[in-house]
């Protein structure tokens, strides 16, 4: 029995969440749906950790779905890169679920709560599927599952503008998915295969073919939309700002991250042998957009009055950091990007949790309504300061580790402009974080502001857990760095 389970751990990672979603739909009771979603997420975290340990021990795991051998059947192919992604997604999910109960109860009408948990599980299944699969078409299917469920989750927001935000995301997301599938179609046309490993072998033979280059362009733009790389980011700030707090937390920690992973997979594993970085100058193109994101989005974040929007713009900037690391196409740069993907997932999810706590108590996330909040919600605001340090990249936080490697990689490459951009972006981060901190700590609460108390422990504990983990991996980063370097090497395997 245990042998059976260990062999089939890989598909279980997706199947469990996929099966649990309709169960929630049938249960209908909020508490029961929550219990199912929480239990499943925690089991999935256990499986993801087991898979990571397994990969660390024995190397890449291959699993042929339905026993149909690749390249005809769908293959799950788990190396360090996607094992790490699975852990990130399930880790954030595991922290979000205990937090969600109180927050969702306050923000979503009771009769729709079970729908939220159903959509959450579908989203989780989609994200995990995107991470685990070794098949480009299968990736499209999971991309759609996760996208469709996230449109629904965003539109569950109490705010009416959540509907327009979701609609906008739907349009942009669909364009992105369409671009992606067009690209996949072209690849199929040129090579006759959909399996990533198989494609990696076939694509070099088609070198110089315009079809393949156009496919690459379509896929890059399509996934660029999903991961919100500036200038394809227009959907993200509103979606994050108007979604229910829990949805913002979960999407900020996972959604864009998996899209980034998918792009890395395509660029390095599938197109790795095609020399797109050397001949095509893709690195320069991506790094230019990354730099624009790092500086532009940080600058815009400074002027936001809604703190959730501020954090959303900050996310765009941080995605820029990750993409900058990736665009270097060196082990050092890639591992910096990957470790920042992890650190930023924890930090940003933690910060959105802070905003959820504040919204629960004050029904606002406007910077003006945060005045003097540090006196009445000290534990919550301290978490904001701690998370903010992470975004700035203060030593002993995860953000510092990311920045250290990113700068080191940029120095190694001799990309001086990128170094300057990283530094300017950190300075801008100090400003936008400090605006919030000053409001909360240095101003007095308005006299007619409602009396508020500290958020419940069920929300504070997961929030501090994420922040705490991000600090732990800032102080003792050997484990995350070893995994990130291993993941980068796995992804770059196609190139070297």
């Amino acid at each position, binding site marked *: 029995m245990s042998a059976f389970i260990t062999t089939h751990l890989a598909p279980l990672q997706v199947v469990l969440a996929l099966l649990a979603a309709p169960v929630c739909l049938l249960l209908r009771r909020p508490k029961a749906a929550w219990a199912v979603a929480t239990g499943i997420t925690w089991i999935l975290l256990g499986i993801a950790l087991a898979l990571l340990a397994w990969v660390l021990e024995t190397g890449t795991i291959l699993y042929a779905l339905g026993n149909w051998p690749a390249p005809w059947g769908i293959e799950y192919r788990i190396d360090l890169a996607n094992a790490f992604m699975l852990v990130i997604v399930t880790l954030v999910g595991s922290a979000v679920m205990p937090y969600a109960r109180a927050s969702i109860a306050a923000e979503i009408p009771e009769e729709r709560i079970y729908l939220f948990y159903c959509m959450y599980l579908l989203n989780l299944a989609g994200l995990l599927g995107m991470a685990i699969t070794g098949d480009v078409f299968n990736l499209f299917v999971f991309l759609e599952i996760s996208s469709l469920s996230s449109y629904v989750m965003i539109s569950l927001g109490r705010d009416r503008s959540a509907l327009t935000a979701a609609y906008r995301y739907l349009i942009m997301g669909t364009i992105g998915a369409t671009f992606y599938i067009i690209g996949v179609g072209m690849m199929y046309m040129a090579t006759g295969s959909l399996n990533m490993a198989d494609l990696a072998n076939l694509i070099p033979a088609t070198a110089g073919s315009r079809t393949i280059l156009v496919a690459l362009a379509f896929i890059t733009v399509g996934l660029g939309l999903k991961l919100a790389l500036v200038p394809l980011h227009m959907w993200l700030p509103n979606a994050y700002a108007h979604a229910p707090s829990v949805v913002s937390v979960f999407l900020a920690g996972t959604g864009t991250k998996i899209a980034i992973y998918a792009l890395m997979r395509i660029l390095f594993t599938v197109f790795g042998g095609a020399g797109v970085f050397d001949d095509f100058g893709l690195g320069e193109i991506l790094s230019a957009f990354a730099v624009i994101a790092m500086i532009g989005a940080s600058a815009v974040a400074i002027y936001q009055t809604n703190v959730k929007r501020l954090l959303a713009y900050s996310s765009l900037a941080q995605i820029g950091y990750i993409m900058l690391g990736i665009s270097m196409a060196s082990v050092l740069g890639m591992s910096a990007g990957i470790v920042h993907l992890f650190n930023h997932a924890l930090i940003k999810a933690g910060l959105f949790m802070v905003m959820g706590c504040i919204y629960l108590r004050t029904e606002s996330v406007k910077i003006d309504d945060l005045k003097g909040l540090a006196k009445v919600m000290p534990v919550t605001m301290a978490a904001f300061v701690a998370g903010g*340090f992470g975004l700035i*990249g*203060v*030593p002993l936080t995860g953000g510092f580790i990311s920045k250290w490697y990113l700068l*080191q990689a940029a120095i190694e490459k001799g990309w001086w402009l990128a170094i300057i951009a990283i530094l300017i972006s950190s300075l801008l981060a*100090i400003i936008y974080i*400090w605006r919030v901190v*000053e409001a909360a700590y240095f101003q007095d609460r308005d006299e007619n502001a409602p009396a508020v108390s500290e958020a419940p422990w069920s929300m504070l504990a997961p929030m501090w857990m994420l922040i705490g983990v991000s600090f732990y991996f800032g102080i003792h980063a050997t484990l995350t760095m070893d995994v990130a370097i291993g993941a980068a090497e796995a992804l770059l395997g196609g190139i070297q």
Partner: protein
Amino acid sequence: MSVEQIILYAVLTPLVGAGLIAVIGDRPNIREAATLVSGVVLFGLVANLYPLMANEQTPQVSLFEMLPGLSLSFQIEPLGMIFAGIASFLWIVTSIYSIGYMRGHHEKNQTRFYFFFAIAISAAIGIAFAGNMLTLFVFYEVLTISTFPLVTHSGTDDAKRGGRVYLGILMGTSIVFLLTAVIWTWSLTGTLDFTAGGILAGKVDGPPAAILFALYMFGIGKAALMPFHRWLPAAMVAPTPVSALLHAVAVVKAGAFSIVKVIVYIFGVETLTREFSSGWLLYVSGFTIIAASIVALRSDNLKRRLAYSTVSQLSYVVLAAAILSPISVMAAAFHIAAHAFGKITLFFAAGSIMVASNKTLVSQLDGIGRRMPWTMGAFFIGALSMIGLPPTAGFVTKWYLLTGAFDAGQMVAVGVIVLSTLLNAGYFLPIVYAAFFRKDPTAAALVADETAIDKHHPPLLIHGEAPVFMVIALSITAAGTVALFLFPDWPLGLAQQLVGGTP
């Protein structure tokens, strides 16, 4: 206890103290006892490490690997001993002073104050004992962050503005310049350990070396090299004990200390001597000395004058190090101790005046020496040390500094020192003169007009000496300033070891 344990306990003691302070915050007497006990324990631990120096040992302890190949580690070496010694000793004295000041001045949130103060001391000790540049950088940033709540203690708009400048400059320079320099060094050499002779020796030269050197010098914003000095006057909105210990000793000396460390252990004096590109530091620090003195001369606010005097005195350390002769590097190390005692005395005096009389301007100090003889007597000693006259520690610095400058043939440095001495005399001695030899005009007016006394604010103008805790503290530091002149062996011996001589 093994040496390694002592080092770790030295860094941890103030942290434990901070924890105790937070827990027993609502009982002020026990809380202050916790601060004092931590101070005494810390000083005891640091003093225990001193004998190792005589045997020329440099024990090392690694905490854990923070990044693959890079550990958070501590190492004892002479310069760190000087810094840790003065920081831990003066923490005790400042704590005594704080009790008088914070209570006499009726400050709010005293628990928070003592809590962050203890954390800042821990960070300072961490900097002093840092075994590599990464550890130094980590504690450098912890020091910045932990002192921010102290600078903005009063919570007023002024404090907020001061805090912005403080955090903006210190964090900005450290993130933009210093971090880049550290990572660059790491990718050039593959090590960040402080090594005699310098780890960059032979690894970098020409324009990149010049850029790297500039990144370090301006990145260490705590050394207040112009144009990145504005945070120091901005920090003067803090309660006076903070200005005294942190912004005359711990924080600013962390900056000067880091600069000397970088020059001696990262670049290596010999490398810099060969490398023409580092010569500009002499001029920048010389300019800072003169310009800051001129600003000090023109400011009427006493704490602001002291702050600019600190900016100027910090550049003595940098100038001394930049001369790059062994004797001047000794002067740099010694001045870290000498200036600490002198300047903390001056700040203590400024705080005493404020608590006793509510006066903050130089122009208000006429005749105050007769009311506060201890305070102003100590002020006089501190002022002498700033000018560099015997019988105070400042004279010893100046002696070695000038010797070093002559040895190296740096006439520009000699000129700067002479001019600066005159300027220092120009802005300190008139205060002393006015305090002792001028009549107090307001007091005379008061005798004539009894109604001038505000009934709601007790007659602040009719005052005597400051609270006894404060007087004790400033007497100790004034005595220390003289003692360093009479018995300079302790820091001088260490300074000699730093440049490779035997004590």
